[in-house]
């Protein structure tokens, strides 16, 4: 029997081993193989839970690991068709090399049993993902990359203060050790958790530290946006959750979560660019997940379901956006309509994905949001519940109204549906999000 820690090592190392194929210029195919192995390994790891040693994996961590590995696989396959004929062989190899590093750093940040190294993992994702944003090397993408690096790095410096304070108080940074300490309540730790909210919150896209998020998501290539929105933000949220557990300042987290939902919903309601609109939708979903994490109980379960279902739904939305951008060469929503006439699969994927991310029943996000609302109700937080319901509804109407305008209408005869993986992957991602909801509803029933 192989030691569970070795399996987790393998999980992080597999994307790095794949990098060897860079030398033989066959990285894209090897990456898809490595991503498939990572998904298989992630599924198998469920039998080994819980793991505490060099790594720290609970069933919650496992959901995040599965999320990262699945979107890694989907993005690897989609990227191969998406960049075909658009990037040179060398540029494609460089792109895949960065994707592998990016995923390895995310997995490292998730599973490591040390707050300091978790921070290192998150910082490493900034380094590896920054260059992915500027794959197209347009002036706007360069500006966005710069903003991303500067804003997130400054945020993470704040998060580092929090790590220093945690070390100062506990004299260790081992997650399992700190979480098993009996008396964790102290003003200093509360300050540390609050600073972590600002610092790591920058990476999650919590209002008002979110300014890099819509820029980066809208300018990055579609498969990268899917990785950003689908799994990078949840990975950062997981690290914040681990810090939050030490000594939770619940009210503070609730305030920031609700502010994020409110402002994201307002911002997305007047967007003209569909990728930017989906970026704000990610922010709104992260706000919802943060709210679930803050209130705990069913809210926590709801938050994890929201994140899991959202990762596939949002990946589907960005993949279909990629197809649309490929075809129409514009991100302006007003220039696109009648997509369903000629691009049936892509438009179905787009519609299903927008249903998925806005929490239409029976999609997974709906189940998660329902649990968060139920917990708010149980805690008698009626005002908070009312505000959140109103703004979630606003986001729901804005996104689905805009998407339906893109999908339905007269249409342009000269456009054609994408072939192969470009149409299969977006639809599959949206359907997975639907299945998550259906399975959960059946289980709960």
């Amino acid at each position, binding site marked *: 029997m192989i030691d569970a820690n070795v399996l987790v090592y393998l999980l992080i190392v597999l994307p790095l081993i794949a990098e060897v194929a860079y030398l033989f210029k066959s990285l894209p195919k090897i990456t898809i193989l490595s991503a498939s192995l990572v998904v298989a390994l992630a599924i198998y790891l469920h039998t080994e839970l819980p793991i505490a040693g060099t790594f720290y994996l609970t069933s919650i961590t496992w959901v995040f690991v599965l999320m990262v590995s699945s979107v890694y696989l989907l993005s690897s396959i989609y990227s191969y068709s998406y960049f075909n004929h658009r990037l040179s062989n060398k540029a494609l190899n460089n792109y895949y090399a960065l994707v592998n590093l990016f995923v390895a750093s995310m997995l490292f940040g998730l599973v490591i049993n040390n707050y*300091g*190294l978790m*921070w*290192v993992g998150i*910082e*490493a994702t*900034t*380094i590896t993902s*920054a*260059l992915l944003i*500027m794959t197209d*090397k347009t*002036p*706007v993408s*360069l*500006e*966005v*990359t*710069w*903003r991303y*690096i*500067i804003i997130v*790095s*400054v945020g993470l*410096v704040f998060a*580092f*203060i929090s*790590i*220093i*304070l945690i*070390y*100062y108080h506990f004299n260790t*940074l081992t997650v399992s050790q700190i979480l098993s300490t009996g008396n964790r309540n102290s*003003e*200093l730790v509360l*300050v540390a958790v609050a600073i972590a909210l600002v610092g790591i919150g920058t990476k999650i896209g919590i209002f008002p530290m979110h300014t890099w998020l*819509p*820029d980066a998501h809208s*300018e990055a290539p579609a498969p990268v946006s899917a990785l950003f929105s689908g799994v990078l933000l949840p990975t950062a949220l997981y690290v914040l959750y681990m810090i939050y557990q030490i000594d939770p300042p619940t009210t503070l987290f609730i305030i920031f979560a609700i502010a994020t939902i409110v402002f994201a919903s307002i*911002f997305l309601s*007047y*967007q*003209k*660019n569909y990728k*930017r609109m989906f970026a704000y939708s990610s922010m709104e979903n992260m706000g919802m997940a943060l709210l679930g994490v803050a209130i705990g109980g069913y809210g926590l379960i709801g938050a994890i379901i929201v994140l899991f279902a959202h990762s596939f739904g949002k990946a589907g939305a960005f993949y279909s956006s990629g197809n649309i951008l490929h075809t129409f060469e514009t991100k302006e929503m007003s220039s696109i309509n009648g997509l369903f006439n000629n691009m049936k699969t892509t438009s179905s994927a787009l519609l299903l994905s927008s249903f998925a991310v806005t929490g239409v029943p029976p999609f997974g996000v709906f189940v998660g949001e329902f649990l968060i609302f139920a917990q708010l109700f149980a805690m008698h937080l009626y005002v908070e519940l009312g505000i959140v319901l109103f703004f979630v509804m606003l986001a729901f109407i804005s996104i689905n109204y805009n998407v339906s305008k893109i999908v339905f209408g007269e249409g342009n005869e000269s456009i054609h549906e994408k072939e192969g993986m470009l149409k299969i992957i977006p639809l599959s991602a949206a359907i997975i999000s639907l299945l998550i909801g259906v399975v959960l509803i059946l289980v709960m029933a």
Partner: protein
Amino acid sequence: MTFIAEIVYMLSAFTLLSAFFILLQPFIRSMIRGIVVQSVLIGLISFIMAYYLSSIDFVLLGILVIVLRGFLVSYLLERQLKKHSSLFRESTYGIPSTILMAIVVAIVGSFIVYFYVFYNLIVTVTIGTTSILLFAFMMMFLGIYIILSRKNTMTQIIGYVEEENSMVLMSIFLIPVPFIVEVTVFLDVITLVLIASVVAKEKLEHVELQELRG
């Protein structure tokens, strides 16, 4: 206060002065020199703490800060500077207004953090009193102010290095340096190498873009 504590306070004050010096420079090369001086000062503080606390970890940290932050980063920035003569000088808003704004941002900001957050907590520092943390806070705010007020890639990198330096200073005063601080020093250099070699090469000024509004 012991003699060693007095020296550490004095060096910390010089570190803060170097932060003000960097802030007021319109010439990028002078700013880079300022960062070298600042990193060497932090390295010296680390060496003194190594002697004071008899800890070899501080020696390692000091060497890392001086070599990586002080020399490697400045070497990389200088190399970029040679390639782009347009980066030689940046127009600033004038010394009096910059100083005034920096005082408002740094001093007021750090005093609020210090008095409302740290003063109420029972924090013991490795040397002197908790007031020594003020140097780190002020430097952090000055670093952020440089990033906010300047539009040039180089100056923003320098602001970021200064902010990171303040973190190292704060961790020196708060905790017996764990492995993580050393990892951070190393990781930042990787970030900066990346930034300096890839982004800065193609994007020298940062202005608002119509596409990124809203």
